[in-house]
């Protein structure tokens, strides 16, 4: 590796030979071919993989929908048995929500965000790769259940007890629970790294209030994923434990409650629809100003609306449960908050209309889809407000009216903007333009087909046709409507096929696009078309919301290497790490190279998933250990490791490498991960207190089975370890690392003491986990703190070793800070668990 001895151009200076710079950068960032393509961590490649895979799942889900519509076209049809029909509807909903909508939008965000904020990649590239593989393998496992005719059949929300072992004895529910949890790893990884990337890797000068609106939307979406998915993960784990081991969480007889599942599901499920809607709205807010030829009216209003949506949508979940028998007053709260969430959506609609009104809109193909979105989505929003009214809701609950509403918001609010976005960014992907003729045909067929299919369903719903019935009798007055609806469905399919054909053909026959073909304002169009693996030869200073409008020359100066970090001789993948508020450059982030570990870890995790499915538990245990080993090995290749950044020299005047500071992006990634973890933990506590207060047959023993003394000893060991770690970190802040390794080993030992004592308490408690819900819930809580404590001590142990290898020390103080955060979290959750499970019950009593 050549040391750095060249002068680097400062912003605007004369560059070195641009071609040479490009070649150097390509050498470092370029994608390998052949088998090694499996190791790629680059965000452009992985974003495309996400999107293409998502579209494949869309086709699968669409085919399932066509099967449903074919069966419902005429009364009394039964080419699918009730059993198969249930599998097909359940899988349609599941595939569309989990395997199409979220991954496609995430793929788009993964592709676009670095390009829009002037970065060269996402901040945890290996995590992108892990996310993709988990998604792919999980998706294949779930879909494969259809081929085996063993697919889940209790509806996409898997209500207990229908999905419990008594009513769903086969493997269907297990496929769902295990497969979806596996896929959710992918959503969470993308969520975490998108948050950190947006906050910490914007190019110099891009302050928070100068970010492209799309980044705001994705920031909100990513945070909502981080907070919103854990409740469902918890629910899935509990239900799978009930099905596999017999721990009675949702069974009334043992003290559980099936309604708990509904709470956990909808705690995730309602935010989920906004997780899908927000990025789609982000596409709309990006496209409308470009085609209207003027800045958006009310940037601040849009930010306001995004934030409000992000929060309020977590306060509505019970509106899916208005019919389960909840006190009127509680229903009224949720009804009111459901109406509240319409406010930010209305604000955005007005902002979009005002921007179109004040600009000179050009009706290019992407705009056509935006207009289609506006029409359909506003209708869906109106029926949504109707459904938020409790009496009306009782009337149409579980009828086709709901199916109609749901598709107006989902297809209108997500699919139409998505296609608009795909058409808009197509030239960036391929360097070519789509065909206006074929594209217009595709749009109109889709639009007319969609409305024919779903407008009619409002009628059938009001006429009382329930959803998820496999057949119906003639004479209910539903026949004609269903026939029209099904014909519409096929029209819709033709339209979508046309769109896909257009996109496929354009790669060959499309007109070559000129640079920045739509005259857009955002930075992604400063890339070459298609973009290079490193996006930007040099990283510009951006202090406007419309870099390409205010400085049309920017693409050239970027490519000529006239801006920051135009240096490649050190062989590292580098980009700016900036201040989250002001966008001032703080450090140079160096990114890891391509790696096999994500793929290997995902493979091991699929073995875990499959062996749990087939109830082959020894193998599952081994695979878990292997997966953890892969992940730890991955974390080993960081910081000052020879594969990461052993040499920390930078150009004079440049900030230090992030691994040589105390506040690198890894710390932020850990915080966001702990946010997800905390949401999981709070969902668990919610479950505990919910069952305690509401569950009809809940039984609390007279005295807690847990040894309070043992728990206190364990907690003290944990707290001492965390305290010591804080002290070491304080030392590092003063550049002192004497006794660092020994300290780490000692902390690790304290962690093991906590684990051992907690384990002893657990075994001594003699819990009857298959008999009472109380004991089963306690078991889950203790296992939670055990796993966290165990991981904490392993991490401390590895830190000790790394100090010995010279990867960590006063000159590279970054990692202990991250580990300290984990320990801090452990201390808090441990004492909360002790309080909630052992102390409170004896104070209050059952």
């Amino acid at each position, binding site marked *: 590796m050549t040391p750095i001895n060249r002068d680097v151009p400062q912003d605007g200076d004369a560059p070195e030979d641009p071609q040479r710079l490009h070649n150097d950068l390509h050498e470092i960032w370029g994608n390998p071919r052949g088998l090694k393509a499996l190791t790629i961590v680059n965000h452009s490649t992985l974003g495309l993989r996400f999107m293409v895979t998502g579209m494949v799942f869309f086709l699968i889900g669409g085919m399932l929908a066509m099967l449903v519509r074919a069966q419902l076209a005429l009364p009394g049809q039964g080419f699918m048995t009730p059993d198969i029909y249930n599998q097909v509807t359940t899988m349609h909903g599941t595939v569309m929500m989990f395997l199409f909508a979220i991954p496609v939008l995430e793929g788009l965000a993964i592709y676009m965000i670095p390009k829009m904020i002037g970065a060269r990649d996402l901040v945890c590239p290996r995590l992108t790769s892990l996310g993709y593989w988990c998604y792919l393998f999980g998706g294949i496992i779930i879909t494969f259940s259809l081929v085996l005719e063993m697919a889940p059949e209790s509806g996409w929300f898997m209500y207990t007890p229908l999905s419990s072992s008594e009513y769903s004895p086969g493997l269907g529910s297990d496929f769902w629970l295990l497969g979806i949890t596996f896929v959710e790893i992918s959503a969470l990884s993308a969520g975490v790294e998108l948050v950190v990337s947006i906050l910490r890797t914007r190019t110099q000068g891009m302050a*928070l209030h100068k970010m492209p609106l799309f980044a705001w939307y994705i920031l909100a979406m990513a945070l909502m994923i981080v907070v919103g998915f854990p409740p469902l993960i918890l629910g899935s784990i509990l239900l799978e434990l009930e099905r596999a081991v017999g721990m009675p969480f949702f069974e009334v007889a043992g003290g559980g409650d099936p309604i708990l599942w509904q709470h956990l599901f909808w705690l995730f499920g309602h935010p989920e629809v906004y997780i899908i809607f927000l990025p789609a709205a982000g596409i709309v807010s990006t496209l409308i100003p470009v085609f209207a030829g003027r800045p958006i009216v009310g940037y601040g209003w849009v930010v*306001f609306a995004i934030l409000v949506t992000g*929060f309020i949508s977590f306060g509505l979940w019970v509106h899916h449960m208005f019919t389960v028998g909840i006190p*009127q007053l509680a229903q009224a709260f949720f009804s009111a908050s459901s109406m509240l969430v319409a406010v930010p959506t209305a604000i955005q609609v007005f902002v979009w209309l005002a921007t179109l009104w004040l600009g000179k809109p050009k009706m290019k193909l992407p705009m056509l889809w935006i207009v289609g979105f506006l029409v359909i989505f506003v209708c869906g929003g109106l029926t949504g407000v109707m459904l938020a009214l409790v009496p009306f809701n009782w009337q149409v609950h579980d009828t086709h009216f709901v199916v109609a509403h749901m598709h107006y918001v989902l297809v209108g609010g997500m699919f139409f903007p998505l296609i608009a976005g795909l058409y808009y960014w197509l030239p960036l992907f391929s360097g070519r333009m789509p065909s206006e003729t074929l594209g217009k045909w595709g749009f109109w067929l889709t639009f007319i087909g969609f409305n024919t299919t779903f407008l009619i369903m409002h009628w059938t719903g009001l006429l009382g046709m329930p959803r998820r019935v496999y057949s119906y009798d003639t004479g209910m007055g539903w026949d004609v409507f269903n026939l029209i609806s099904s014909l519409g469905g096929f029209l819709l399919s033709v339209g979508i096929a046309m769109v896909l054909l257009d996109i496929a053909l354009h790669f060959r026959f499309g007109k070559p696009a000129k640079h920045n073909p739509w005259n857009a304002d955002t930075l992604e169009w400063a890339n070459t078309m298609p973009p290079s693996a490193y996006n930007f030869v040099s990283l510009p200073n951006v202090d406007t919301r419309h870099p390409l409008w205010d400085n049309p020359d920017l693409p050239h100066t970027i490519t000529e290497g006239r801006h920051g970090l135009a240096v490649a001789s050190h062989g590292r993948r580098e980009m700016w790490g900036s201040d989250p508020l002001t966008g001032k450059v703080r450090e140079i982030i160096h990114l890891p190279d391509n790696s096999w570990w994500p793929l290997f870890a995902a493979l091991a995790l699929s073995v875990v998933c499959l062996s749990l499915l087939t109830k082959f538990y020894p193998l599952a245990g081994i695979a878990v250990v292997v997966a953890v080993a892969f992940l730890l090995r991955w974390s080993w290749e960081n910081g000052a490791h020879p594969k990461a950044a052993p040499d920390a020299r930078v150009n004079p005047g440049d900030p230090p490498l992030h691994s040589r500071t105390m506040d690198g992006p890894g710390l932020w990634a850990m915080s966001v991960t702990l946010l997800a973890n905390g949401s999981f933990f709070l969902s668990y506590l919610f479950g505990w207190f919910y069952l305690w*207060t509401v569950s009809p047959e809940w039984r609390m023993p007279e005295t807690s089975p847990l040894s309070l003394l043992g728990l206190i000893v364990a907690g003290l060991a944990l707290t001492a370890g965390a305290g010591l770690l804080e002290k070491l970190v304080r030392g590092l802040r003063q550049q002192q690392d004497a006794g660092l390794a020994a300290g780490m080993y000692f902390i690790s030992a304290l962690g093991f003491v906590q684990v051992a004592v907690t384990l002893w308490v657990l075994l001594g408690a003699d819990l009857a986990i298959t008999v009472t819900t109380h004991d089963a819930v306690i078991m889950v809580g203790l296992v939670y703190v055990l796993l966290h404590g165990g991981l904490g001590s392993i991490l401390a142990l590895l830190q000790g070793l790394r100090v010995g290898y010279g990867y960590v020390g006063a000159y590279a103080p970054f990692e202990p800070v991250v580990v300290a955060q984990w320990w801090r979290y452990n201390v808090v959750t441990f004492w909360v668990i002790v309080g909630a499970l052992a102390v409170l019950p004896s104070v209050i009593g059952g």
Partner: protein
Amino acid sequence: MIATMERLHLTHPLHFIVGLTLWSVWFVTVYGGHAVACAVIPPDPEQGAFTLVNAMLLVVSLAAAGLLATLAWGCCRIAKHHQGRLLFNAVVSAGLYLFSALGVVFTAMPIVGLPPCL
């Protein structure tokens, strides 16, 4: 009062989320408190909406709304003294506090009219 407001750094983007977080905390308190109250001290249905439970929920809600409104007012005051980024932050925060305050009022309205545990 003004001095306290200064110390809150109302031009920091953290206030983008404080108001809505308070709204969420209030919402969880009222929803959870209501459930627990109905489990522990269910009032006589004859009493209608004039119960201790309603009164407690109402007090909590008024306090939350008052706090949020004060913060909204504080952001407005501070906003006048700034420009650019800090002005943007203060104005957006003011709007979010105001929305949260109104959100509390709107969501809490049923407390005045409905019996709690039916």
